[in-house]
């Protein structure tokens, strides 16, 4: 008995030492996010760096960090440097709220960015609203954020589902046909996507041949594809996102569905296209921002700068969201010469982004009535075999301005309540 306990004790001590060493090594490694300094303006970022959205969250972070670098190189905001505090929401609403409270109560941030996950974005928007902190939602798409759940202190960069649907719908209807079949991920966001597209279809006078609701995380799409093919539509709209979309499109390609039916969808991302085997890169989609924009000022330089900071990879729409969110704060604060959230929030109404931030041909501004950024939609086709750069996986056909794709402010359901 005593022999056992002695050996266990030795093991324990060794383990503790090893753990301490590992701990120290980790804290010194490149994955340390930030060292905390003083007399800086603290900016908080909450994103799901672990979990299914990890890839897009990391790209957002690259964009934000690059923006911070640029801002600080030009003297910071009102003469003070920006200090970025990054927290992982772990794709869990509770954790997101906890981190939001921590960043605001303990760390005293002046500005908040996040979250990619719509549910978490809504939850932390509640916290930022309670505490009166200016907040830009970089990548959460649910319409409510600039709709019925809008807050005076919250602005959003990425598109709403209605904007996405409107950008693609007309093209699909005119070019490919009136009969549409939907494959919809069965959760709140998926339903919103489908309703937005279906509304457009109805507006143009088309018919919906069916709507397959598939649970999140579906691995096998054959049942839905069997039905879709049997319904004989002109267009098949694939609405799942992320890994689900990758699998669905793979199976679509394997079954050869695209030979009879035109495949399309709403939002598509470079991260997803890169995760697909080449034969699955089919269909008509919209991107929220694309890196290859010949002739548009600022884009090439941005791409080159990001390449240096991301191990050679091009910026994705997510990188641009992060970059824009951070730059927005610096630009408006420097212009208004204040850090007061209410004043800045008011000033952001109709605030237009300069060329080296908007990185797109159309006018890009935050709408006053719902705080939504009027950013363009890049409509085009997925590319199976990239012609030049291996990351050029999308061929842009048209770039539609944000205020053309977005429903008017009166229809969003947003009623802003400003503090007295």
């Amino acid at each position, binding site marked *: 008995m005593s022999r056992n306990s002695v050996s266990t004790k030795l093991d*324990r001590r060794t383990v503790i030492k090893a753990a301490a060493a590992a701990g120290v090594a*980790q804290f010194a490694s490149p994955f340390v*996010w930030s060292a905390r300094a003083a007399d800086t303006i603290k900016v908080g970022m909450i994103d799901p760096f672990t979990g299914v959205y990890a890839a897009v969250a990391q790209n957002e972070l690259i964009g934000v960090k690059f923006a911070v670098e640029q801002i600080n190189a030009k003297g910071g905001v009102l003469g003070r440097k920006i200090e970025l505090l990054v927290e992982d929401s772990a794709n869990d609403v509770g954790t997101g709220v*906890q981190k939001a409270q*921590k960043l605001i109560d*303990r760390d005293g941030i002046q500005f908040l960015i996040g979250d990619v996950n719509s549910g978490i974005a809504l*939850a932390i928007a*509640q916290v930022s609203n309670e505490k009166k902190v200016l907040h830009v939602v970089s990548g959460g798409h649910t319409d409510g954020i600039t709709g019925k759940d809008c807050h005076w202190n919250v602005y959003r960069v990425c598109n709403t589902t209605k904007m996405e649907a409107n950008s693609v719908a007309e093209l699909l209807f005119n070019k490919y046909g009136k009969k549409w079949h939907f494959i919809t991920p069965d959760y709140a966001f998926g339903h919103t996507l489908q309703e937005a597209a279906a509304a457009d279809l109805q507006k143009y006078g088309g018919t919906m041949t069916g709507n397959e609701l598939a649970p999140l995380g579906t691995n096998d799409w054959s049942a839905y594809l069997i039905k879709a093919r049997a319904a004989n539509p002109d267009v098949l709209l694939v609405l799942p996102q992320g890994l689900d979309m990758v699998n669905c499109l793979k199976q679509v390609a394997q079954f050869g569905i695209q030979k009879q039916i035109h495949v399309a969808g709403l939002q598509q991302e470079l991260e997803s296209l890169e995760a697909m085997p080449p034969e699955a890169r089919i269909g008509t989609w919209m991107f929220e921002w694309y890196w290859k924009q010949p002739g548009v000022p600022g884009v090439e330089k941005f791409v080159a700068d990001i390449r240096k900071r991301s191990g050679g990879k091009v910026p994705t729409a997510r990188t641009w969201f992060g970059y824009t969110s951070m730059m927005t704060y610096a630009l408006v604060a420097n212009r208004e010469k204040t850090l007061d959230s209410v004043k800045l929030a008011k000033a952001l109404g109709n605030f237009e982004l300069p060329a080296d931030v908007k990185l797109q041909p159309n006018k890009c501004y935050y709408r006053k009535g719902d705080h939504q950024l009027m950013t363009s939609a890049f409509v085009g086709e997925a590319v199976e075999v990239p012609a030049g750069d291996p990351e050029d996986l999308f061929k842009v056909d048209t770039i539609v301005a944000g205020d053309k794709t977005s429903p008017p402010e009166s229809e969003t359901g947003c009623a802003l309540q400003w503090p007295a």
Partner: protein
Amino acid sequence: MSETHRKLAALAAIWVVLVCAPLWMPLVGGYTALGSRVLVLGLAAMSVNFLLGFTGVLSFGHAAWFGLGAYGCGLILKFIALSTPLGLLAGTLLGGVLGGMLGALIVRRRGVYFAMVTIAFGQVFYYIAFQWSSLTGGDDGLRPFYRQPLHLGFTTVDILQNSTAFYYFVLICFAAAVALMGFLLRSPFGRTMLAIRENERRARFLGIPVEMHIWIAFTLSCFFMAFAGSLYALVNNFADPRGLHYSQSGDFVMMAVMGGMRSFWGPLLGAVVFVVLQDYVSSITVNWQIFIGLTFVVVVLFFPRGLLGFLQARRRG
């Protein structure tokens, strides 16, 4: 100092620390909201331990009742009445009653099989919460609802905006639950549970209706769990499916083990360590999950009696 004196002193120390938390927390880099969160999760861990440590029954899907408590509270606050006490009551009943009902089905099983079935049950509720989005908000979670100010007749306590007031509210609820738990464990019922844990067969031979006792213990722990869940809904001002997921259960069991399963206050200590560790490490590095996983592994392999168990063993020599 005699054993009883030492125990009373320890108890007093614990309560002093808890009551003064809003004062010393900011000094060590904490914040009051974290304290409220730790209390609630600690209560959940203690509820799991009520079953696990004191009865010897492993339920690995216990977060189901936690999540149900959160949804119950939230649904009341959102749709029915703007009353915090009513929300708490509804949440506790929802989790407790459903737990009792389902517990009756599986009480004959034990060990690994029992654990597996509880996981599966938890996942059923997770799935329902996820899919029934018209009621529960699905993946986005149940929102918006807010904890309502307490109208105590002579004064109104604003627990929404004032995090310190809310912390004390949670502390009072925690104290009530913990007192009840302690009372139950000290009662003849509690003694019987310990007997069953130590040697089930002997207990059965003594004529004790073992299944009935286990079912009662299970149901009671579900009520405590649901109460903790309702409080959690108030802490966050929302409820979401993840609170029902087996990974949440895993966290609670881990807290109980980390702190010390055989002791009453162990799980609270475990909750403190776990929450603070996770909070701290996830701010430092993106690979915090590896650290948490390693913590699980290290605790299981080298500190199975938990921190309190380790300290007690040290003290005894």
